[in-house]
């Protein structure tokens, strides 16, 4: 079942809040590394928890740089 961008974004925000304590506002243009300010352990946690949450596998995606890329990759994974 496909989900809207807004739904996926809200899901990522929930995961980020619950699992890595991200307090800010998530928008698609934010860059994961530079803007979210997560260290590598938190980044790994976010990646894995997002996978668990949406039941998708992202480990073959090379070009996820922004929150928007992540949303697109998850939506592609959900459709696939």
């Amino acid at each position, binding site marked *: 079942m496909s989900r809207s961008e807004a739904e996926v974004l809200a899901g990522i925000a929930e995961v980020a809040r619950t699992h890595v304590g991200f307090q800010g506002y998530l928008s698609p243009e934010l860059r994961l*590394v530079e803007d979210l300010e997560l260290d590598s352990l938190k*980044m790994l946690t976010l990646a894995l928890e997002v996978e*668990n949450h949406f039941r998708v596998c992202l480990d073959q995606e090379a070009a996820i740089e922004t929150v928007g890329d992540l949303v697109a990759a998850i939506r592609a994974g959900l459709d696939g």
Partner: protein
Amino acid sequence: MAEPRTLGALLARAAGFPDTGLRLLDRFEREHWLPWPAIHERARAAAGRIRGAGVAAGERVALVYPTGEGFFDAFFGSLLAGAVPVPLYPPVRLGRLAEYSARTAAMLEAVGTRLVLADPGVRRLLGEAVERARPALGCRTLDELGDGASFEAAVDERALALIQFSSGTTVEPKPVALSQRAVLAQTRILNGLWPPRADGVDSGVSWLPLYHDMGLIGCVLPALERPGTLTLIPPELFVTRPAVWLRTISRHRATLSPAPNFAYSLCVDKIRDEELAGVDLSCWRVALNGAEPVAPRVLRAFCARFARWGFRAEALTPVYGLSEATLAVTFSELGRGFASRRFDRERLAAAAEAREHPDGIELVSVGRPLPGFSLEIRDPEGRALSAGRVGRVQVRGPSLMDGYLGRPEATAEALRDGWLDTGDLGFLHGGELFLTGRAKDVLILRGRCHAPSEVEHAVDAVDGVRTGCTVAVSHLPEGAAGEELLLLLEARRELAAADYPALGAAAARAVRSATGLAPDRVAVLAPGSLPRTSSGKLRRQEALRRWLAGELRPPAPVTPIRLAGAVARSALAMARSRRARGRG
């Protein structure tokens, strides 16, 4: 049958024990059983393919795999092909791929990689690293190598068994070359610590990555040598669900399981009671703690938290080692629990002398040298120091590295007359080793070594920082839960002190973004504050010493309160001067 002298011979012997092997958990905690006979058979097939692809004896094959059966096909396949496996870590998820590629390319080049073998899932992410390093046979999955007849090379015990990196770095990767003899010696010493017992067989559980010495050499190889059974958890599963580690130990009645200090801390912080329903940790006889400094606070918290589930405090076993010695050098006495002592801070700092003091700093013993190893504490001129004097820890033993591959100068610095200079500082007390710090420049964070230069380069790019005037050091502050990353940096002369806090924040962001490491503390200093050598090189350990001694202070930050104080003081001074004038 003669005692096996190589890893390949150990595998051939283990193939005769079908009840032993590796139990692999996938990311959903499902188990997959891989007995040693199957591992051997698959490795023979892989070896045929690796030979067929054009890899000759002694050539290096880099392995990039997550924890799973593919790793073992490639690792043992390379060994049976007579090649030298070089396990590297797989790409990070989400971003930071540029840093990964640069680092991986540097490591591939440093060992003169002939072939990169990769898991099909991560291979796409290796493109840039492989393009830069240009290994002769490229980057392939095992399946792509085509079929070859099963193969098993005869390998000399003096040949290299594997290469591991002491710290992954783009600047100066140091490939630690370990002979078959060294690796087997270390493996046998470890197994000698837990001989077969009347009341059962020891078995292990590990979530440690297979590119980490404590995971591969400390867990997999002893299981191969016994031969015994080891349960492996993917590291990323542990990081997100640390309870899986404890549940797995309980489910399989495992007796041995190691981890760095941070893992014990993560368990205390993250595991919820309901995740441990039915768990019984009383089987866990040896909870090794190594690869980073041991924090007494964490050990106590772990015992207090998990005693309810049967965890026995006496299982905690702090150990010490380094990749240049293959792995372990000292072990605490098994079954004793961790032992700590308090030492006079002043004497340690000022006189490099350890004297017990009831209110002193608490240090944890990492135990005594393993059988076959000797320790010496030496002063900077190389003279042996007596017990209680702090100096450089020197090690001699049967599992020292052959050297850094292709780096004769670095090798000559580390190995002299059969002694390895560990670069660590410590002292002997009651025959046991206590570590106090490091003489070498390395950051140890979450069980992994990092080069300070990478962090410092990231800071150099920040506007307002004096180029080349940043020091990154890590240390275990008293009472902390783990090593902390400290940045000391000099601001440019034209920068006002009021802008220092913003500069510090920008530097921390730059480090996180470039390296994934989060600085715990950033101090912005006036130009010229940091200690240098006569040739102008920054002295990192001296900078840390001065920082800890309070000799390196940022200029007083101008906060509203201090500003008010300054105004008041100057008002008083004005008044005094007026009075003085009035009298005059």
